[in-house]
């Protein structure tokens, strides 16, 4: 498994390739969304909806062998694409890594200019929710020690 830094660097390079073409960038994000494995319908509960996103985003997580695995879905492909980027970086990492990772790719690829302020707020809500899951697992692991 590559480190979070390496994955972020890969993403930055992929987006650099799209240069400043906003349309192509959006299509690329959409395509990433379409590739995200579908989430089991039973997991699309009110409880799993991330608050603060304008479109619907469901996020759940599992904790196995000290690592957190995320599953997510959305009713829009662009949003799915955005969360797939986060899953690519953070899923399969330890709670500590998730909590300590600075997601600097967001700024480097100029995400807020591409997706606009409303979706940026939603994107930040996704990151926050992933970190909250990690925080929960870390606390639980410490109690079980």
């Amino acid at each position: 498994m590559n480190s979070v830094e390496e994955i972020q660097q890969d993403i930055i390079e992929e987006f650099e390739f799209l240069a400043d073409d906003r349309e192509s960038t959006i299509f690329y994000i959409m395509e990433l969304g379409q590739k995200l494995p579908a989430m089991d319908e039973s997991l699309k509960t009110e409880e799993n909806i991330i608050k603060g996103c304008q479109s619907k985003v469901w996020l759940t997580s599992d904790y196995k062998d000290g690592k957190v695995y995320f599953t997510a879905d959305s009713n829009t492909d662009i949003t799915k694409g955005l969360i797939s980027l986060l899953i690519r970086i953070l899923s399969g990492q330890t709670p500590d890594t998730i909590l300590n990772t600075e997601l600097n790719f967001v700024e480097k690829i100029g995400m807020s200019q591409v997706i606009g302020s409303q979706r940026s707020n939603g994107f930040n809500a996704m990151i926050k929710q992933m970190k909250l899951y990690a925080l929960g697992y870390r606390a639980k692991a410490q109690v079980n020690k």
Partner: protein
Amino acid sequence: MEAAIKQSSLDIAAIRAQFPVLKQEVNGYPLTYFDNAATSQKPLRVIEALNQYYSAYNSNIHRGVHTLAEKATNAYEATRNSLQKFINANEKEEIIFTKGTSESINLVAATYGRQNISEGDEIIITGLEHHSNIVPWQMLCEEKGAILKVVPVSNQGEINLDDFKALLSDKTKIVSVAFASNALGTINPVKQIIEAAHKIGAVVLLDAAQAVAHLEVDVQALDCDFLAASAHKMYGPTGVGFLYGKRHLLEQMPPYQGGGEMIKEVTFEKTTYNDIPFKFEAGTPNIADIIAFSEAIGFINELGKENIRVYEDALLDYATQKLTAIDKVKLIGTAQHKVGVLSFIFEGMHPFDVGMMLDARGIAVRTGHHCTMPLMEQFGLEGTIRASFAVYNTFEEIDTFVASLTKIANRIK
């Protein structure tokens, strides 16, 4: 298309030249502004009126003896006169300045509504309403124990007069309906609604936010009791709107807010209220924007409502025809009578995503529920993509729009 242009006597290029905001590129493409139902752009004469007011005669209005106050007061009251003529009100005192349509409706609900609605009374709205014409009445019903009745909407996005009449009873006190729907463009049969409501003694408020810039609005011919609208949807400034009310109703209504301007005399024991319209205009109003509003009315008057309607109808017909030809597009709201609003969904793509793709090509549309969540629910939708037209839009812009949608459709195959 050419036939449609010939029908219109308007010089669209000359009209466009009056709108500085239209002369720009967005994301490398010339701006195509199709979000006019949300807010229209402003012609230079409106922008200059604002500039002129602040540069030359900014002053608080009424009760000032100095020259600037006099000038500002005259300009402010001139807008009231323009509006009176614009909607053919009987008297200028029947025009109350507000922040916009929402405040106008809230004003009526909070004053006339509180005064006249009791437990068990009924208020009728339609399933097409904007949240602004739902929530104030819900609040009133909750406070008074009254009942909100909703006229159903057909799959075409129309209301049926018989359905409306079936809801009328001696309990009906207020009917509040949209002149034209912001989400679907449907023009409601308001004249017949008003006639039927009056027969059983109910008063009728028209939410004319989507009508004033596009349709002939004559409050005396319609015989509506109240009419609410916003300046910013009719080429005027934001933060300004008006309420029309029949004199005898406005006079019997209690004030909406307390403060300066709305009083005749104040002692610590008792306050007597000013006459209409000032009774409802507490505090220093939005003087600058109200003065500039007059220029927006002038702009519409110069073009002529009939000319505007003919041209916008041609735009709507052209766009409807072109959009229907795209496989993945499904129009939502196909009423027989519509203002220039095209609501649609795009198969296999969420409205937000379509909106973002169009923006990447410089095309501004609105996506989402358009503040009509109950209506969207009826169609089983979370939202639509909405293109809405104004008099400065062109057939070429519709071609660009359709070409972009076709390109997106091909790309997601």
